[in-house]
């Protein structure tokens, strides 16, 4: 397996400079197939580069077989590629060991796995789970369901009026009954970067475990789970240029080892009799049934793609483009930007006076500008902001200032259509 990993040319991080999104874009077939498309919905899901699409297809053509159980060459090759993909994810997140990586369908399944397997084993009535007002439904509802089942309390850490997590208020919420803090790394509505290092320190000092939702962070920032010190970290492959149906849960080895199994089935057992069943060690214990083998391999290809561009360069690109977009949008009359705290990356939510976000999205679509309109699976945040919906533009490695220019032009077109500025 390590041999497979080592085949990739080693590029030292420092030698990777900024990249040209126009060149990068040529690697994404969707733009050739949809000429004129201005795709500003990468936070919902990223488009896929040719290396991922073709690599996936080629795996099916050349190396496909079920994993872990076949003696024959094809199956051994498939297994090696699948486990190399696990190594690849571990390396990308700087996990201490590949056995700390559980493949899941996506962030949502990863969070549910923790809630349903870790929760009942380690929580008792009266315990508390802390989430923030910034969370995606996927990092709220599983905890709510768990709280109902176990008599545990859900505590909400507030944001300040600028859209940043209120760290002081968060610190005050922590009590000896706090058993888990579940928080996003980058907020999906605002793009705000949460100071998760501080969150982990404070939570650990209070004796609580920490789960970080890295859905919007992994596509945009270098993530080092050991440096963060978190206990759990989840992300979705489809948001970082990989296939749908795959993502990963990282959990510290000691935490994973202490967890009972979640789902039962093939590949996660040691021995089965009708009287008694014994289970494999992690990560196998948490992967019942045939996994999404091709998905894992495709995810590894996507992480290769990101590494080739350089994750530091991606972060710089997205942060710069986000700053540019915020400036360009706020310069427009009647446009208000949703606060994201001190630092934001890759995402900007905004409102246009007199035009509902849904109408904006339809009008934008006629200009080939694809954005999201709605609550972005964050209804509690919308309630906190006093909104029912926002318009959201989000960026990827293929996005550039021309996309922002098209966005600005589309806003003006909408305002003209609605008679809010004079048509000239």
């Amino acid at each position, binding site marked *: 397996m390590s041999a497979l990993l080592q085949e990739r040319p080693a590029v030292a991080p420092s030698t990777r400079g900024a990249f040209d999104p126009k060149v990068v874009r040529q690697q994404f077939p969707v733009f050739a197939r949809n000429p004129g498309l201005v795709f500003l919905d990468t936070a919902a899901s990223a488009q896929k580069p040719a290396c991922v699409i073709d690599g996936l297809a080629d795996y099916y053509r050349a190396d496909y077989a079920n994993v872990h159980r076949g003696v024959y060459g094809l199956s051994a090759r498939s297994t090696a590629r699948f486990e190399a993909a696990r190594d690849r994810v571990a390396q990308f997140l700087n996990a201490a060991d590949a056995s700390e990586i559980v493949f899941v369908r996506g962030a949502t399944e990863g969070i549910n796995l923790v809630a349903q397997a870790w929760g009942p084993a380690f929580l008792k009535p009266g315990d508390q789970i802390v989430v923030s007002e910034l969370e995606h439904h996927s990092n709220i509802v599983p905890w709510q369901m768990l709280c109902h089942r176990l008599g545990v309390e859900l505590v909400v850490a507030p944001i300040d009026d600028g859209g940043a997590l209120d760290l002081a208020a968060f610190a005050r919420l922590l009590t000896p009954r706090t058993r888990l803090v579940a928080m996003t790394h980058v907020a999906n509505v605002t793009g705000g970067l949460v100071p998760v290092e501080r969150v982990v320190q404070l939570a650990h000092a209070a004796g609580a475990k920490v789960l970080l939702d890295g859905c919007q962070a992994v596509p945009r920032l270098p993530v080092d789970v050991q440096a963060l010190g978190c206990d759990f970290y989840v992300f979705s492959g489809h948001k970082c240029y990989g296939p749908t149906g795959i993502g990963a849960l990282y959990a510290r080895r000691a935490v994973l080892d202490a967890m009972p199994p979640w789902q039962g089935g093939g590949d996660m057992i040691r021995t089965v009799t009708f009287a008694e069943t014994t289970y494999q060690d992690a990560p196998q214990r948490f992967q019942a049934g045939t996994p999404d083998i091709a998905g894992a391999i495709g995810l590894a290809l996507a992480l290769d793609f990101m590494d080739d561009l350089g994750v530091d360069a991606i972060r710089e690109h997205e942060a710069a483009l986000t700053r540019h977009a915020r400036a360009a949008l706020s310069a427009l009359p009647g446009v208000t930007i949703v606060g994201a705290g001190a630092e934001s990356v890759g995402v900007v939510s905004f409102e246009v006076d007199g035009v509902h*976000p*849904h109408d904006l999205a339809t009008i934008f679509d*006629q200009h080939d500008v694809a954005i999201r309109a709605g609550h972005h699976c964050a209804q509690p945040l919308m309630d906190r902001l006093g909104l029912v919906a926002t318009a959201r533009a989000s960026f990827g490695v293929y996005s550039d200032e021309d996309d922002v220019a098209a966005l600005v032009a589309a806003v003006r077109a909408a305002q003209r259509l609605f008679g809010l500025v004079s048509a000239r």
Partner: protein
Amino acid sequence: MDLRDLYQDIILDHGRHPRNFRPLPGASHFAHGHNPLCGDKVTIFVRVEDGRVADVSFEGKGCAISIASASLMTEVMQDKTVAEAQALFAHFHGKVTGAEGAGVSASSVSGLPADLLEEGDRLEPLAGVRSYPARVKCATLAWHTFDAAVGGMAGGGPLKTE
């Protein structure tokens, strides 16, 4: 497709200045409607007297399409019998989905009674929605909510309070 087909002046006008946008004291029926995809919300109030819609109003938050559709609905529904309201819903449904007869029998679409043809015409500005499938739910939200309020109108069931 021209956006002007969707955002006709009458739609923009009803979107900005919705008619019958108010609570209805003495309402005999009401229902809340909600589009979980976008978070838009509407409440429909109806006062039914002698099997007729004596008054209908609404409140809510939403896009131009959903507000305009609700507003136009409250206008055409005034004073209608349940059977008439049902016929108008079927007519409207066929108009905005383009699939005339999807879930609604075709005869009820084509067979809009003569005395309702004028009301039917007033809904014509909403027909542009059919070219925007993602927006059909916006246009139908208020109507389904009205239906829920008066109790399965499309199914022809008896009026009941929510």
